[in-house]
């Protein structure tokens, strides 16, 4: 793949790297001055390692070998046990609307990408960054600020109208995950019916951790509009749902910005 790392010196120093992995594109966006080549190299290696272990498309991944019963959890990468535990937690919290076995087969995909991005973000912090975003195919963990005194601002794409951003969320140290029915052609299965989820066409969840936000966005997509009531009981997380009839719903704590207009 073509590595794309560049530093531009205008208003502030910024380092951006775009990496193809897990069938999608990851963007690492560091807003601190400095040379972050080592940090980015570390994160990129990490993402590809996650793909090797967790991909449901790679015949020799740990997940596929577990599916086929060729190895047990003890023989798998130790991250697998951590992820499956997180999946089990998410299944309990969501009342079964999130599951690592959506088709009766082991598939923790609904949580792995968010988990990988969150760990990537932590790795950057360990390398000394203080203001950065890691975006994996539209799911992101944001740390610090976009610029001095300016919090990160994330647009929520409107799944129905290609020329609109539905709304924006803004803040420091937060995560945003969106699940959609049209996303990359993949259908999210309602674990209670075994059929594709139909109550919503898009669900966005914000909160402190992308691992949870990613899993909750999958669950809320299945729940549909009722998901915004469910998430009210989940401390620190909010949801925005675009229902199948194109109506938008938000949880009580989802703040609607009033000060954002096009420039």
């Amino acid at each position: 793949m073509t590595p794309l790392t560049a530093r531009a010196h205008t208003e502030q120093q910024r380092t951006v790297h775009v990496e193809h992995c897990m069938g999608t594109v990851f963007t690492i966006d560091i807003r601190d001055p400095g040379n972050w080549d080592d940090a980015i190299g570390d994160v990129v290696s990490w993402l590809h390692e996650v793909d090797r272990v967790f991909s449901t498309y790679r015949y020799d991944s740990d997940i596929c070998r577990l599916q086929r019963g060729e190895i047990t959890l003890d023989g798998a990468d130790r991250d697998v046990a951590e992820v499956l535990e997180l999946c089990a937690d998410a299944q309990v919290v969501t009342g079964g609307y999130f599951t690592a076995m959506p088709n009766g087969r082991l598939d923790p995909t609904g949580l792995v990408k968010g988990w990988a991005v969150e760990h990537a973000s932590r790795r950057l912090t360990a390398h000394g960054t203080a203001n950065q975003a890691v975006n994996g195919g539209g799911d992101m963990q944001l740390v610090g600020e976009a610029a001095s005194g300016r919090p990160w601002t994330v647009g929520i794409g409107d799944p129905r109208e290609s020329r609109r951003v539905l709304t924006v969320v803004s803040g420091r140290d937060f995560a945003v995950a969106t699940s959609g029915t049209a996303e990359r052609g993949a259908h999210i299965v309602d674990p209670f019916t075994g059929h594709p989820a139909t109550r919503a066409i898009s669900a966005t969840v914000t909160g402190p951790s992308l691992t949870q936000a990613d899993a909750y966005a999958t669950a809320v997509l299945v729940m549909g509009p009722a998901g915004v009531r469910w998430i009210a009981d989940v401390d620190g997380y909010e949801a925005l749902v675009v229902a199948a009839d194109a109506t938008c719903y938000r949880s009580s704590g989802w703040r609607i910005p009033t000060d954002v207009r096009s420039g």
Partner: protein
Amino acid sequence: MRRVAFAIVGTIAGLVGLLSFKTHSASIANPPAAISTTGPSTSGGAPNTGSEPSAPSVPGSSSNTVTGDAADTRWGPVQVRITVTNGKLSDVTAVEYPSENPRDQEINSYAIPALNREALSAGNAKIDMISGATYTSQGYVQSLQSALDKAGLK
């Protein structure tokens, strides 16, 4: 994996204007309250005032046009051209994109305008990122990023 784009296929006229968007600020009751979805849809933006496709960047001028590297996707190469006016992103056009069969065209008729909107929103409204994956975004984002980098934008 790297490929050189040999030709600029052509400008996709009318795909993109200087889009603006409004966030929904309708009054909202307690959940699950419906958010008004009757906000204005932003068609009919300003016409593309970018430079000619092959115009070289002129140092010191207020408007620069930069073409990103062509990025391979499973559907074919994608290449993006941006115009920077007074230091801000003012236009994004896909100058090359997969269109070999009707299905590709169908995909791109939706995806390319969507991505143009995202890029312009990001440039004009200080939106740092967009949540919600879009179908053919991979090559587009890659080419766009290289163009932004070449332009030294932000």
